[in-house]
């Protein structure tokens, strides 16, 4: 490795370490790292400003922004709360049924909408319902975070790593439905049954006040029915278009941004308030990471990694995929899965350029990045959200509890994904 590659790798690894320690906000780390990378590139002449701009994947950013605008419009309508309250009533106060219903609702919504927003809005209602019933909310909250993170892996728009992978590998919405969803469904059910089993004692508690839950009025949680229906209609149309994107030869970003535009025109909200709900820090973080990893690639650091992988040719490709699932999952459990994914993408692209069949590796990356986050309390943003909210209840979710109940779920889903990956491998090669 030359000096440029070593220094570029150092910038990236130090940034990752800083994101891991959470001493600094990840967006600050990202922007600083990107600036340093461009500076280094200019000084050593391997990375120009126009290279840095070209490294940004605007397809992913556009898709994220479009979906964020739709969520921003739906958020204040009370639609998410409505779903949670509805689930509460349908459960008739039975804890196990509540776990299944809330887990399913959160998963279904977060397969198409940002799962952090979904969890942020559904978890408080979950706590409320648990307090009303007099049961421990921790199993429900953990199930919502884990199941929505798991389910999100099934679709192109379900989680950010998928958007990145889809854009880089040219995988369509339909590809994800065909190749990822069956495995994700299996993993999801395993996660659900395992959570049910691990929390059997908490879930066996007989609720004190079932009648109170039956008096909840879902309709009253839906503050703005008209707007909710409009946004959902637009969202439904966008999902239909996602299915045929390859036939229409349009990008997912184009569909998402068009849907956002249509929804904005139809709803005509207070734009300032709507745009305040957009998570700009996430978009800036992504852009900064693209610039940083672009520099890493230009410096030749990733080429060294590619050569290293190619030199270990004794390993059968299918096992390399399984190894990728576990390696990415382990990394995603302790550090943000977005920088991991953005850094691995050029490695896979490089392997592909050297004639190695990479189609299966994309799915290995998606499964690892998606399921790995379930393992620790800091593994995903949704996990952090439910843990923080649970501090306001009688039974806070601790890191120890997560290791006891969440880690087994991560291990089981990764094991299931590995097994099914091996079985589906011939299919992935086609």
């Amino acid at each position, binding site marked *: 490795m030359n000096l440029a590659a070593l220094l570029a790798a150092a910038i990236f690894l130090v940034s990752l370490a800083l994101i891991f320690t959470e001493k600094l906000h990840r967006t600050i780390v990202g922007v600083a790292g990107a600036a340093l990378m461009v500076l280094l590139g200019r000084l050593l002449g391997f990375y120009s400003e126009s290279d840095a701009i070209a490294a940004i994947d605007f397809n992913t950013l556009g898709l994220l922004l479009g979906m964020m605008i739709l969520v921003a419009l739906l958020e204040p309508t009370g639609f998410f709360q409505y779903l949670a309250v509805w689930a509460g009533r349908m459960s008739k106060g039975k804890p196990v049924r509540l776990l299944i219903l809330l887990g399913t609702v959160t998963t279904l919504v977060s397969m198409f909408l940002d799962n952090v927003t979904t969890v942020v809005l559904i978890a408080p209602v979950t*706590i409320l319902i648990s307090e009303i019933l007099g049961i421990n909310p921790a199993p429900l909250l953990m199930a919502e975070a884990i199941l929505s993170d798991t389910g999100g892996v099934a679709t192109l728009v379900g989680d950010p790593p998928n958007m990145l992978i889809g854009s880089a590998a040219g995988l369509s919405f339909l590809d994800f439905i065909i190749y990822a969803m069956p495995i994700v469904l299996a993993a999801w059910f395993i996660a659900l049954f395992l959570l049910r089993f691990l929390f059997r004692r908490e879930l066996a508690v007989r609720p004190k*006040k079932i009648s109170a839950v039956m008096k909840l009025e879902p309709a009253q949680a839906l503050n703005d029915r008209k707007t909710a229906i409009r946004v959902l209609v637009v969202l439904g149309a966008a999902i239909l278009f996602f299915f045929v994107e390859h036939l229409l030869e349009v990008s997912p970003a184009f569909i998402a941004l068009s849907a956002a535009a249509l929804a904005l025109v139809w709803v005509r909200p207070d734009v300032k308030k709507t745009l305040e709900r957009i998570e700009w820090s996430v978009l800036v973080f992504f852009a900064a990471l693209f610039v940083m990893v672009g520099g890493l690639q230009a410096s030749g650091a990733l080429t060294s990694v590619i050569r290293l992988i190619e030199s270990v040719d004794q390993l059968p490709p299918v096992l390399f995929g399984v190894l990728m699932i576990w390696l990415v999952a382990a990394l995603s459990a302790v550090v943000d899965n977005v920088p991991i994914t953005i850094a691995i993408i050029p490695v896979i692209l490089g392997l592909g350029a050297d004639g190695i069949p990479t189609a299966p590796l994309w799915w290995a990356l998606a499964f690892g990045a998606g399921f790995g986050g379930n393992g620790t309390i800091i593994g995903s943003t949704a996990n952090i959200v439910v843990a923080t909210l649970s501090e306001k209840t009688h039974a806070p979710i601790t890191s120890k509890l997560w290791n006891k109940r969440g880690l087994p779920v991560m291990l089981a889903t990764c094991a299931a994904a590995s097994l099914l990956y091996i079985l589906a491998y011939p299919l992935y090669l086609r």
Partner: protein
Amino acid sequence: MVIRDCMKSKVFSIPATASILDAATVFVERHVGILPVVDENGKPVGVIRMGDLLTLELPDFVHLVQDLDFVHDFGAVETTRPNRRLLLQPVTTLMKPIQAIEETSGLLRAYARMLQDNLYDLPVVDASGKLVGIVSRVDIGAAVLSLWSAKEKK
């Protein structure tokens, strides 16, 4: 008119060694909303408000949900009592730093402070910082409104 003229100069307080349960008993008996916590020399070290105790009964989740229209029955929340071990902890674990007003302060200045800090009672201190009374929003409000009718009588 200044705060000294409308405050209650009889102040109920609680020693720093008291438990949360002791504080609750004083709140019930005296029907007040705030108790200064004093050390062995009678010097105030903080205040405890009725609301601080009630958060033990009604956890913070209420603030997490934007509007509660759809909840018609609080169910188990209504009947769940905080556990005994928690209630026997010293009152100092829940107490807040003292925010006091000088006895020479004008009425509306004191009232504005209450609005700004979302308080309903303020301890009153003299120039040396000694606790001399307590004033509530109702005390100040009644004093201010009494000036209206006083004017008309003239």
